[in-house]
């Protein structure tokens, strides 16, 4: 096939699989952070993104993001994978199909990220409807701005692997979702603690692993940009971890495991927009310095009345914002071959980075707010208070994460007529 590079293609197939792993990893990370009775529901919100966002992406999402259209949104030219074949997409050396799959994995993980704002209370059905719309109308549009030839990219804004659509897109949408769906009934009244810190740390570790495909694949080749982004994905989160340890130690005199897991995510997010654009040294500075604003938001947010439950805003929105701006200062043509930041004499770069950092949050927040408000008119977004008390695993899925089986009675399919088989005391 003309123009296809086998080495690039091999790496991009691998990178796509790595990014796909990030979604179950995120499910694990989120599941550990909620209460025991909501473990499966929380996990299922990520799995649901694998289902729904993939289908919507194939239907129209990819087309809205990557078809030529106007500066704001793409057209319908690639709807249902039309013209997505073995021929490389312009400007790449990999088959268009691989490019499509790689971008799909981005849409999936980003969609799953937003669920962190509404866990432990949102109805599963309403969530499915929400992410079907969100993956197209928020992610698809923002991806067009940054990656698909939209107005930010056309004007030279640098966003290596998705500071705009992925990180700020999910983070500020999460804030809107938390405001519309409102707080859990126990929020601010009871201590709502993570039920399994090991899931959290393991989930974060797997996310980092997947992130090497996420950033390392965003050069769409095995070229310099990918290699630089790959190594920066090692350096920046490590620096964030070190700084986070120090911040934790200063604040509480102890270095916490869940704090470390959070630091890994924040570090990966920070380097996402900057991966292939800044030198390894600056990447380490970004990882270290960028920890501060996210840490501050994580400390302050629970004191507010906004139950943005799993701090998607702090970890993704704020860190994505920091990363995008950082590129405006420290991008280096000597390393990326494209453009310098203001530190190397190019003030325009900072201007466009700033514009991206302002408009993406506004669009994500506004559109998500509107989507959920409209959806709320069509169906209830939340389970009832008593269902919330029992937990969403049993209520929404009819399963428990840690079923003991004690006292469970087997119902044989042939005798399952829906009636209760054991004598139970008359409840009246």
């Amino acid at each position: 096939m003309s123009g296809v590079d086998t080495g690039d293609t091999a790496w991009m197939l691998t990178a796509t699989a790595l990014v796909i792993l990030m979604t179950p990893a995120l499910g694990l990370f989120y599941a550990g952070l909620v209460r025991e009775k909501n473990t499966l529901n929380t996990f299922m919100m990520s799995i649901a993104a694998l289902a729904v966002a993939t289908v919507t992406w194939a239907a129209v999402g990819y087309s809205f993001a990557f078809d030529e259209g106007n500066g704001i949104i793409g057209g319908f030219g690639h709807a249902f994978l039309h013209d997505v074949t073995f021929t490389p997409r312009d400007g790449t050396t990999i088959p268009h199909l691989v490019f499509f799959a790689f971008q799909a994995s981005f849409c999936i993980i980003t969609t799953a990220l937003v669920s962190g704002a509404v866990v432990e209370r949102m109805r599963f059905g309403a969530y499915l409807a929400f992410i079907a719309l969100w993956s197209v109308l928020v992610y698809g549009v923002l991806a067009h701005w940054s990656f698909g030839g939209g107005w930010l990219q056309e004007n030279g804004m640098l966003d290596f692997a998705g500071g705009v659509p992925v990180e700020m897109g999910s983070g500020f949408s999460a804030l809107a979702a938390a405001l519309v769906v409102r707080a859990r009934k126990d929020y601010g009244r009871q201590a709502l603690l993570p039920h399994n810190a090991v899931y959290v740390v393991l989930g974060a570790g797997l996310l980092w692993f997947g992130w090497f495909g996420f950033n390392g694949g965003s050069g769409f080749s095995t070229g310099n940009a990918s290699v630089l982004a790959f190594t920066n994905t090692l350096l920046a989160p490590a620096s964030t971890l070190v700084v986070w340890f120090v911040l934790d130690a200063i604040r509480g005199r102890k270095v916490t495991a869940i704090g470390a897991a959070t630091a890994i995510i924040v570090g990966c997010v920070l380097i996402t927009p900057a991966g292939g654009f800044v030198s390894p040294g600056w990447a380490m500075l970004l990882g270290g310095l960028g920890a501060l604003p996210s840490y501050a938001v994580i400390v302050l947010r629970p004191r507010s009345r906004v139950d943005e439950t799993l701090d998607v805003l702090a970890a993704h929105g704020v860190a994505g914002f920091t990363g995008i701006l950082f590129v405006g200062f420290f991008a280096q043509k000597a390393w990326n071959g494209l453009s310098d930041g203001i530190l190397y004499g190019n003030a325009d770069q900072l201007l466009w980075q700033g514009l991206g950092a302002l408009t993406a949050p506004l669009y994500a927040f506004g559109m998500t707010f509107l989507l959920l408000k409209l959806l709320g008119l069509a169906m209830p977004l939340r389970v009832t208070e008593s269902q919330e008390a029992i937990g969403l695993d049993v209520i929404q899925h009819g399963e428990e994460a840690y079923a003991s089986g004690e006292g469970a009675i087997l119902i044989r399919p042939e005798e399952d007529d829906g009636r209760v088989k054991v004598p139970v005391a008359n409840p009246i």
Partner: protein
Amino acid sequence: MKLVIGIVRPEKTNDVLEALFRCEVRGVSMSRVQGHGGELDRVETYRGTTVQMGLEDKMRFEIAVSDEFVDPTITALCEGARTGEVGDGKIFVLPLERAVRIRTGEMDHDAVTPVGA
């Protein structure tokens, strides 16, 4: 001196504790138990296996109190644990023969009355 045993829904644990502390009852033990109290059985499905979960998770409070605290304790348990649905739980009050506060060696009435009450 009585031992008050309250078996309540796990999701009402915090409400019960709050209600108990509000009426100055401070000596409480609790444990997770499983039981069946007449509520309709929950049906769960794991792959092809459908089961009826006969036992529900409950919280069991054990509260040893001097006589003047028995009624407030019962009131607090009821207030904290009631939802109005079947499965809210039960309260049992048992006579208590002896009680010793290990730290001070105080016996019986003094041992089960909160310090300062």
